[in-house]
């Protein structure tokens, strides 16, 4: 997706605190193997982020959330989440948190970017329906649970 649309939109990865650190509450095996622990300081967070970028050959510009986790909290982003911000500052895609929401969010973003790059116009925000709730483009039926990394890795590689 990044390769396809990087001229049309700004992409930023925001690296936040670990989802399954080796010394965390629910560690995963590869975290233990790679020695990924809860970040004690900003430098450690940067090091782990760099490891991810290197191991997965990711080229998306990466930002590092401060140790105060403020941006993470502002976006309720943990463990992982995808958003699309329009040029007017409002959210066009606000996926559900975690692995279930990520793929639908990705797909919604691709659709949006496709439409935007073809027409040059940003898709309209969904209107409020009769009940007064806004439909959320980013959240479809939950996907089957997959490790975020796996699905993210596949999508990065697939769409460049």
């Amino acid at each position: 997706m990044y390769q396809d649309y990087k001229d049309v939109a700004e992409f930023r990865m925001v690296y936040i605190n670990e989802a399954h650190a080796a010394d965390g509450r629910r560690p995963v095996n590869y975290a233990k193997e790679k020695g990924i622990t809860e970040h004690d300081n900003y430098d450690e967070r940067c090091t782990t982020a760099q490891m991810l970028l290197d191991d997965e050959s990711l080229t998306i510009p990466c930002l590092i959330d401060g140790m105060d986790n403020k941006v993470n909290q502002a976006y309720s982003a943990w463990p992982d989440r995808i958003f699309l911000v329009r040029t007017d500052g409002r959210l066009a895609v606000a996926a559900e948190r975690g692995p279930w929401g990520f793929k639908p969010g990705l797909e919604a973003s691709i659709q949006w970017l496709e439409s935007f790059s073809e027409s040059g116009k940003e898709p309209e925000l969904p209107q409020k329906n009769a009940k007064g709730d806004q439909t959320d483009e980013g959240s479809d039926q939950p996907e089957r649970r997959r490790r975020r990394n796996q699905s993210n890795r596949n999508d990065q590689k697939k769409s460049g």
Partner: protein
Amino acid sequence: MLNKVIPILITVLLIAICSPAWGQGGFGEADSNSDGKIDAKELKKYVANKLDGFDKIDAMFRALDKDGDTGISEDEFEDRMEVVRSLMRSRTDNAKRQQRRRRSQSQRDSGLKVGQEAPTFKLKSLDGKSETDLASFKGKKPVILIFGSYS
């Protein structure tokens, strides 16, 4: 038959009285004259208050006596302890539990919705050489934000 039932009921009641589900200071509440001891009258009053009359005892008995042979076997007792506990739980405890459940649900659904303003922020890049200010893209380009971590 009665001989079997009464000790079991008393045990169950005593367990319930001592359990946290009955609120703070079960002893203090029961010891209404605060003389440091619960006498028979105080116990009757305390239990009656907690159980709102005998309906609950009947219901408790029926729930415990699964095979309806008007006697509660040890197996039936163990099986149905949870039903007894839930009958004895005060309404406020149930309300508190519901409130906690609703709160944790809202935490999972938390956050921003389509159409809302994206919170602005400024964060440094990984290489430390630049800073991204989300507000700077307003009016210029849409922004995709991907939050996550290695694990």
